[in-house]
């Protein structure tokens, strides 16, 4: 790694490499490149949340114009799931959520497919419905997956057959009874919110064809090209190498395009169509409801503290509403357990975090990966504790802020790479002018209040999470960087270009980053998610750069007749450090060097780099002890709101976030990530909730009725980065893509609770709810 103090590109606001392309509408997303002979699909979805499928009449659809095939669950006897194989590609025998796909039409055109879908008649026998995790856990609750005991699953996941529990993660740290005995004050409260959705602007889509030599060619809006390859291989018993996945730039992922989505069904349909390319694309309504979103939560926190405000123990129950299928929820709930204390020193911690089946649309990975849920619960509990102790809620957090030397829920001791949480709280306090008070009466009906919360997150990754990088060179001395990182809007290709440019002492104009990830030529990479991409792919990139430089120097040393140690590479040249006039222009050496008489040596320089997560371990199934966390990015957030107590309506005036990221590679891009995630957090807390009728049918399954933030809703944003270095991060950097969303529900709930003088323990925080709880009646 280069010396850290003379950086020329890292830390600068390099303009995005894909900027001009995007503002001219030239980026080719998955649906922009149709394949010749492509076939189209349309779905039939269940109008029931829980029902037996009695019959599906397909005969009229099969005869309809342009229809190539009509398929139901009976055609595809597979059970698929990344961690727990519980879901057929189309519903088989019964449906477990409103919107579950029961049939699919393949036709020559999309119109013909949609026409034919209307001709399918399905008859159902409705079954008793489970509307929440608490209901699902009752003794007399219907068991949604009767065959849970026979499902394949990874070892780390522990489903409980005969119940609706797909996984239970336990944290048993210290001694909880002792913890509560040592407390002067104990609070206990319940919290909840319903499922939501990612609402990326590009709906999910996958196009699959099978070549005549049986090579499965997948093109998909995915964060996980290699993940798709792996999972397809294991689901359908195809060797990895016979599956090629292409990941073009993605129109927003937020976790919803990680793992596996439409690819298995698209493959099965292409197989039925003799390998012809089949485009499986969701309408917005299907993406909101039929395809997975974010989990709902029911939680109970019991928290004990001394009268000085030192936390002594926490007993936490997190019930994740995973919906009809487990998908990622088994791991999301697990990751939540590992961080369930929030970024606070709690030596006695008992957590049970369950992923629970219900008859709701199912959940997948979502920005924050369980950390919004755990954070909401613990941050609300902290505020309630602060109120009971009659203590400033910010002070309570300061007192208990976790630091290097303290232990995490999985009993790791935090090392010197640990961020400065107190510093983050101080910054947020400064931005929101917290010392001036967190409650101000503006008029008879209007108050202004503030709330804060802390957050932390480590990437929730397998112990063998890997990344790679390849550098090749062009004859003008510029270089091509190929990694497995997908550009989903987070700016990764620009960040990696900056790292590469810094290594070579050039501008990013000399670095061309490969834009489409293709599994047969891009280096293997776990998945673009978990806020680990810059960290891991960044490390691999640096290694590839160093490797390339070493190889250049090897050839150059022969030409310049010196030792390799005497050489440096910068500004497009390799030169002798103390005799700068003895140099070779990179373009003349990177693909082989020719002496004046024609003799040539060397050859194309190819730099390679790799990274694998270091020292991660599995955890003990009884106590949760282990090391699943690579690095923790932590920080604080706060909001200021203005509330009209007459009707509960409110406006978020300010939102502040201070996060310790080690180093900022690109300040504008980093800010954009944090602001975007805060905006998502505001929506998550206030409007983004699926609404159900008493039969758990979704009432707001269109973009007209499921609301996200609009232009003009945005508050004044404050973003500050602290820089306690991550010693093993690229240039000392840590991940930051998700963290900004995590503390917002807690901070906003705190501010609004302050306004009405009553603890608001549910979301979404709508004006009606606020007014009901404490408005002027």
């Amino acid at each position, binding site marked *: 790694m280069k010396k850290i103090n003379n950086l020329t590109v890292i830390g600068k606001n390099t303009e995005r490499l894909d900027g001009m392309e995007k503002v001219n509408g030239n*980026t080719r997303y998955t649906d922009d490149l149709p394949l010749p002979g492509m076939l189209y699909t349309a779905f039939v979805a269940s109008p029931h949340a829980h029902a037996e499928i009695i019959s599906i009449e397909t005969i009229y659809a099969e005869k309809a114009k342009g229809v190539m095939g009509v398929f139901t669950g009976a055609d595809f006897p597979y059970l698929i799931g990344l961690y727990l194989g519980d879901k057929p590609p189309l519903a088989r025998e019964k449906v477990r959520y409103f919107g579950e796909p029961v049939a699919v039409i393949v036709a020559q055109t999309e119109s013909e497919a949609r026409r034919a879908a209307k001709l399918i008649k399905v008859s159902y026998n409705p079954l008793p419905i489970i509307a929440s995790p608490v209901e699902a856990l009752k003794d007399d609750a219907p068991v949604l997956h009767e065959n849970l005991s026979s499902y394949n699953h990874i070892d780390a996941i522990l489903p409980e057959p005969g119940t609706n529990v797909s996984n239970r993660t336990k944290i048993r740290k210290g001694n909880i009874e002792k913890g509560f005995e040592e407390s002067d004050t104990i609070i206990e409260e319940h919290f909840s919110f319903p499922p939501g959705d990612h609402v990326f602007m590009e709906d999910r889509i996958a196009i699959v064809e099978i070549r005549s030599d049986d090579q499965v060619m997948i093109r998909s809006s995915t964060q996980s090209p290699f993940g798709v390859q792996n999972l397809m291989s294991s689901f359908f018993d195809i060797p990895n190498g016979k599956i090629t996945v292409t990941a073009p*730039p993605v129109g927003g992922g937020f976790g919803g395009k990680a793992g596996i989505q439409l690819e298995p069904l698209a493959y099965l349909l292409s197989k039925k169509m003799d390998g012809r390319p089949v485009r499986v694309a969701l309408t*917005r309504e299907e993406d909101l409801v039929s395809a997975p979103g974010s989990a709902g939560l029911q939680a109970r926190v019991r928290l004990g503290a001394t009268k000085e405000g030192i936390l002594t123990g926490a007993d936490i129950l997190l019930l994740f509403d995973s919906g009809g299928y487990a998908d990622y929820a088994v791991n999301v709930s697990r990751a939540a357990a590992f961080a369930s204390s929030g970024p606070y020193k709690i030596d006695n911690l008992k957590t049970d975090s369950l992923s629970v089946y219900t008859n709701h649309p199912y959940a997948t990975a979502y920005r924050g990966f369980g950390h919004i849920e755990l954070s909401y619960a613990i941050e609300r509990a902290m505020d309630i504790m602060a109120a009971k102790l009659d203590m400033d809620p910010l002070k309570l957090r300061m007192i208990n802020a976790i630091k290097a030397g303290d232990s995490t829920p999985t009993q790791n001791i935090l090392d010197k790479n640990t961020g400065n949480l107190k510093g983050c709280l101080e910054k947020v306090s400064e931005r929101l002018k917290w010392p001036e008070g967190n409650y101000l009466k503006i008029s008879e009906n209007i108050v202004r209040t503030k709330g804060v919360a802390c957050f932390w997150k480590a990437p929730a990754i397998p112990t063998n999470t890997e990344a790679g990088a390849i550098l090749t060179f062009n004859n003008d001395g510029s270089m091509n960087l190929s990694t497995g990182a997908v550009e989903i809007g987070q700016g990764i290709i620009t960040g990696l270009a900056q790292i590469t440019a810094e290594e070579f002492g050039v501008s990013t104009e000399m670095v061309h980053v490969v834009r489409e990830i293709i599994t047969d030529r891009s280096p293997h990479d776990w998945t673009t998610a978990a806020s680990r991409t810059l960290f891991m792919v960044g490390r691999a990139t640096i290694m590839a750069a160093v490797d390339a430089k070493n190889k250049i120097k090897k050839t150059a040393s022969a030409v310049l007749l010196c030792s390799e140690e005497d050489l440096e590479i910068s500004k497009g040249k390799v030169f002798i450090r103390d005799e700068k006039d003895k140099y070779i222009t990179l373009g003349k050496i990177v693909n082989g060097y020719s002496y004046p008489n024609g003799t040539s040596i060397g050859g194309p320089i190819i730099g390679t780099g790799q990274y694998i997560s270091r020292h991660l371990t599995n955890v003990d199934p009884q106590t949760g002890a282990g090391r699943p966390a690579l690095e923790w990015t932590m920080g604080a957030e706060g909001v200021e709101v203005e509330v009209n107590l007459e009707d509960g309506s409110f406006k978020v005036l300010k939102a502040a976030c201070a996060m310790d990221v080690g180093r900022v590679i690109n300040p504008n891009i980093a800010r954009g990530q944090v602001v975007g995630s805060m*905006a998502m957090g505001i929506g998550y807390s206030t409007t983004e909730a699926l609404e159900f009728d008493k039969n758990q049918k979704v009432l707001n399954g269109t973009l007209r009725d499921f609301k996200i933030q609009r232009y003009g809703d*945005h508050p004044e944003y404050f973003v500050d980065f602290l820089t306690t270095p991550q010693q093993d991060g690229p240039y000392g950097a840590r991940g930051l893509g998700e963290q900004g969303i995590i503390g917002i529900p807690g901070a906003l709930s705190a501010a609004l609770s302050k306004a009405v003088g009553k603890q608001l323990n549910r979301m979404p925080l709508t004006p009606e709810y606020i007014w009901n709880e404490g408005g002027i009646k």
Partner: protein
Amino acid sequence: MKIYSDIQKVVLDVNNEKRELVIEPSDTLLRVLRDKLELKGTKIGCEHGDCGVCTVQINGKAVKSCLSLAIENIESKITTIEGIDNEPLKKSFVKHQGFQCGYCTSGMIVNADSLLKSIDKPSDAETRVYLESNLCRCTGYEGIESAVKNTVKL
């Protein structure tokens, strides 16, 4: 009275080019632009009028092409993102972080361009009225606000 009973040969004026093509009266403008004219810059996001990624200009006014029929635009000047020549606006979007994943960007720029062409120095309120027609999930709108305001300053 003009009658279009069936599949039609029509001429559409798109980005200052007269394009001859064959359409059904029931074809939406969005699908005709993407599938028949292969102008992929205009995106599909909801086909319900809610998200704005399909926004084009009809005679300079922003219109959601998913809710417009190709056939009702035979006499109009249609401008897609490919035909927006507002370089200062585009450069401002790049400089001021007006996008991240880029999927909403075509529609956002087409609408912002129509704003700047209609109102000389739009106020915050006027900017809001126009741009609240377009959803963005990535930026939180801060970068978009900067991009548009900084274009106005020039």
